[in-house]
């Protein structure tokens, strides 16, 4: 993609003023890091509160005459239980293709906004939003429609002090439970706030009109507890937290069962099916899978990057690394990838083929650091 074609988010100028290093990501010019660097940003998020702009992600709502009709419509495309969502409640799921592969992963929230009781608010990955919106629209039942929210910005406030920081703008927003959401005025700015995130920490995702994004961002950053964090630390944070990155740890060829996302598929959906790709999900739930996503911890200091081959102790290839790097809070290299199911138990010794050398490693439980979500 040529540089001219890169899109800019509502906070682009602010990132530049903050001295961010901007890189192309999913068609946008995004801050990968600020002057302090990825290590410092990562650790700050784990100790205090980090503020991320993620306006490149796709926000839309699916609208229908009433909640049940809308929920049943989306349940055709995702394996999660949408019908049981309470107003304001949020759930993680995946858009599946007809073969049971993952077209994208997404967050789905039942609206608790007055006048929008039949709506589901959906956030998808930046790199997939074009596909996702078209796919959802094509497959919606009559009477349902998809509305893109391209004029909304999105930011994430993450870390153990996120609650304290947001409480200064609106104490009610700080009372949200994990995976719940609502509409709040944050010091004069209307926002849709959910208690969720992508770092393994407690935190909030905040959707606001693009025109008000700079005001809210600046307001949050004026708190000494809060610092701006780029996509580089977002990646190392989510990797330590064992969370999948679409296009790397999950894609059109992997199923939610291979990816270990069984927890996101409720019992009713497993039994009833009735979603795209259900035959594979149901078959794999009963009969098992030949490969599984696992955490892998190299024993030495050398990181094993995406694409690194995983070998058994005899040197036979048994899998591949899909995300790998350095975990600043772990203070060592960490990775995740797929291995043959026989090797998927935590503690299994494996080898990683890094620059022609087979380096010792172990299959590890995920996450690498304990999640600190606010339950």
């Amino acid at each position: 993609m040529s540089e001219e074609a890169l899109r800019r988010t509502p906070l682009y100028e602010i990132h530049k003023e903050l001295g961010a290093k901007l890189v192309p990501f999913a068609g946008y010019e995004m801050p990968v890091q600020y002057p302090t660097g990825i290590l410092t940003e990562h650790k700050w998020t784990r100790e205090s509160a980090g503020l991320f702009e993620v306006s490149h992600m796709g926000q839309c709502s699916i609208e229908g005459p009433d909640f049940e009709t809308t929920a049943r419509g989306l349940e055709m495309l995702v394996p999660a239980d949408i019908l049981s969502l309470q107003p304001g409640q949020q759930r993680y799921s995946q858009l599946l293709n007809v073969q049971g592969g993952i077209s994208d992963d997404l967050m789905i929230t039942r609206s608790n906004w007055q006048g929008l009781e039949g709506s589901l608010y959906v956030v998808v990955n930046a790199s997939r939003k074009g596909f996702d919106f078209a796919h959802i629209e094509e497959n919606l039942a009559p009477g349902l429609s998809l509305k893109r929210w391209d004029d909304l910005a999105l930011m994430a406030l993450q870390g153990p002090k996120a609650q304290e920081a947001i409480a200064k703008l609106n104490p009610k927003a700080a009372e949200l439970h994990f995976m719940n959401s609502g509409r709040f005025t944050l010091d004069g700015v209307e926002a849709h706030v959910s208690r969720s995130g992508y770092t393994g920490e407690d935190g909030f995702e905040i959707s606001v009109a693009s025109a008000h994004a700079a005001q809210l961002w600046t307001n949050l950053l004026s708190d000494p507890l809060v610092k701006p964090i780029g996509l580089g630390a977002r990646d190392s944070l989510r990797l330590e937290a064992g969370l999948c990155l679409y296009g790397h740890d999950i894609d059109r060829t992997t199923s939610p069962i291979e990816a270990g996302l069984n927890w996101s598929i409720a019992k009713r959906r497993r039994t009833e099916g009735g979603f795209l790709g259900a035959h594979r999900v149901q078959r794999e739930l009963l009969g098992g899978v030949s490969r599984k996503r696992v955490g892998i911890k190299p024993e030495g200091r050398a990181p094993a990057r995406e694409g690194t081959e995983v070998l058994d102790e005899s040197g036979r290839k048994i899998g591949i690394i899909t995300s790998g790097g350095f975990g600043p809070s772990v203070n060592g290299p960490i990775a995740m990838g797929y291995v043959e199911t026989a090797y998927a138990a935590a503690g299994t010794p494996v080898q990683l083929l890094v620059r022609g050398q087979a380096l010792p490693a172990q299959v590890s439980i995920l996450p690498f650091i304990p999640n600190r979500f606010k339950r």
Partner: protein
Amino acid sequence: MKFSKDHEWVTVEGNVATIGITEHAQSQLGDVVFVELPKLGRNVAANESVAVVESVKAASEVYVPVSGEVVAVNDELSGDPALVNRAAENDGWFMKVKLSNTSELDGLMDKPAYDAFVAG
């Protein structure tokens, strides 16, 4: 001190060259978390990839700008890779090479030329 287009620096004492990555290179890489150095006694050729420096985000190759035998490596980098960020052009050196062809030094840039090269 001389500089290569691959962002390595070289200083020479007698016929031994000390080699590292430049201040500009470390600032572009960001936080260094791992350095892989060549084995002692290895014969390296100019512009050969002989070391790897890894930041949180990515791995980058380090090309040796001169030919010769590796006679020393900086062991401190294994326990403290961030030394590359703190002191790229002195204590954060990578390796020492006994030169087999001193004329290769003539092809390297001096400081003003390198600064101009970096400025593009």
